[in-house]
């Protein structure tokens, strides 16, 4: 096992308070990407 994630980073990843805000941020960001629309590719590129 090689430690590739530092202790401070791990604390950030697993701290419930920090992660609560990350959860809100992630939810909004993912919503924007996924629900932000989709379409074709042919007409736009022709």
């Amino acid at each position, binding site marked *: *096992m*090689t*430690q*590739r*994630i530092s202790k401070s980073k791990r604390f*950030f*990843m*697993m*701290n*419930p308070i920090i*992660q*609560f805000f*990350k*959860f809100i941020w*992630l*939810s909004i*960001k*993912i*919503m*924007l*990407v*996924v*629900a*932000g629309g*989709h*379409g*074709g*590719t*042919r007409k*736009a*590129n022709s």
Partner: protein
Amino acid sequence: MSKIVILGAGISGHVAAAHLRRKLSKEHEVLVVSPNSNYQWIPSNIWVGIGRMKSDQILFPLPPLYKKKNINFKQALVTTFHPEGDAETESAFVKIKYVNGQQKGNTENVTYDYLINATGPKLAFDMTEGLNPGTNKAYSVCTYSHAEHAWHALDDLIQQMKQGKKAKILIGTGHAKSTCQGAAFEYILNVEQELRRHNVRDQAEVIWIANEYQLGDFGMDGVLLSYGDNIMKSSEMVEMIFEDRGIKWILGAGVNKIEDGIAHYETLDGEYKSETYDFAMLIPAFSGHGFKAFDKNNEDITEKLFKGFMLVDADYTPKPYEEWSVQDWPETYQNPSYNNIFAPGIAFAPPHAISKPRVSKNGTSISPAPPRTGMPSGITAKLVADNIIDIINGKKDLHHKGSLGNMGAACIASAGYGMTKGSGVSITTYPIVPDYNKYPNTQGRKLGKTFGEIGLAGHWLKFALHYAFIYKAKMKPFWWLIPE
């Protein structure tokens, strides 16, 4: 009045049925034909496979819901397609065979005005010799029953490890052309965390085996993503996670035979190797169902409808990897020969892979097939439903389009279960199929929309999505406000 027949009640079929029923008046008939009478939220199979969820938490019976919502349902499987009818039946129809109840074994011709083929993939375990869930110590998490079975075997092994047994656990792809590396990725991280939770991690060697050329390919040729302030490749991110968790890996491996506790595989270098294990979870190849189609004179016209999976508005011209284009991918999922047949979700034939194809020195193709995930399945099913509604309402063109080359997807990969100890790897990709013309400097993806995150929030998000999507699937109040 129109009759819309939907084959399959998975994510794609159910989404299409739900939207059609909500938006069409009751004079139009919506009929779902599926051999499985349960709806299952497949992404949570991972948690069934580690014993942290029960099957009944991820599924519910469809007939009562469909009865309440005025959606007709037949528990049957489709056997043949007749898009022109036949000598006796003028309308297009599919022949179905009932699989349950008093009508079990009976066949029926089901006519339609519009057909949505949402039959998904066949889990082609038979393409790998000896790979059959529950035999040779190899398991699957592709269905809830497979996942339950896998958990029982893993639990047995954990109990043996508590008595001092050393064990080797092998997780990944079980065929040279498998896809769904993401599911195996989730499972290996969850299993690894469960081993730690049971204090037996030190006694286990955990190995990832995959047909990927690099870690983090996921059948999408990998992604370049933003991670915090950094820009990194998905291969680097997965390598970081695996090394941190002590997971070893074997790449470019085309598993071709499974014996009791032994996986035989071929490498891209052309070597034939084997790996022993005490427990394996290997994703099989996916294939079409081998459906046949016939014209009015009962002549075989299968090639007009199927190329393994169903043919749609993609460019299927064979071409080398360098000439692959995002424009090859379908936009409306409409069959080119019969414009009242659609195949959203996993049922459509992709024009080609997304990952660069690679061939071993022996000529064996070893590289991932395109990923087939729930989010695009739902989105494409909804747009097909919307186009059918438009046609019924008199519109001639298909206005709703959704190419995988112009659509984002979120892969919230569970990396361990638990409200305080859990973790998730959230990777959002836009677009799913890289557009190298539009985003030439970022490996075909838009960086701001292609990002990765690791942490407890990812687990909460996957957990929240589990409940949100089951709520949506149950068509509870305002379900349509939850996006696909």
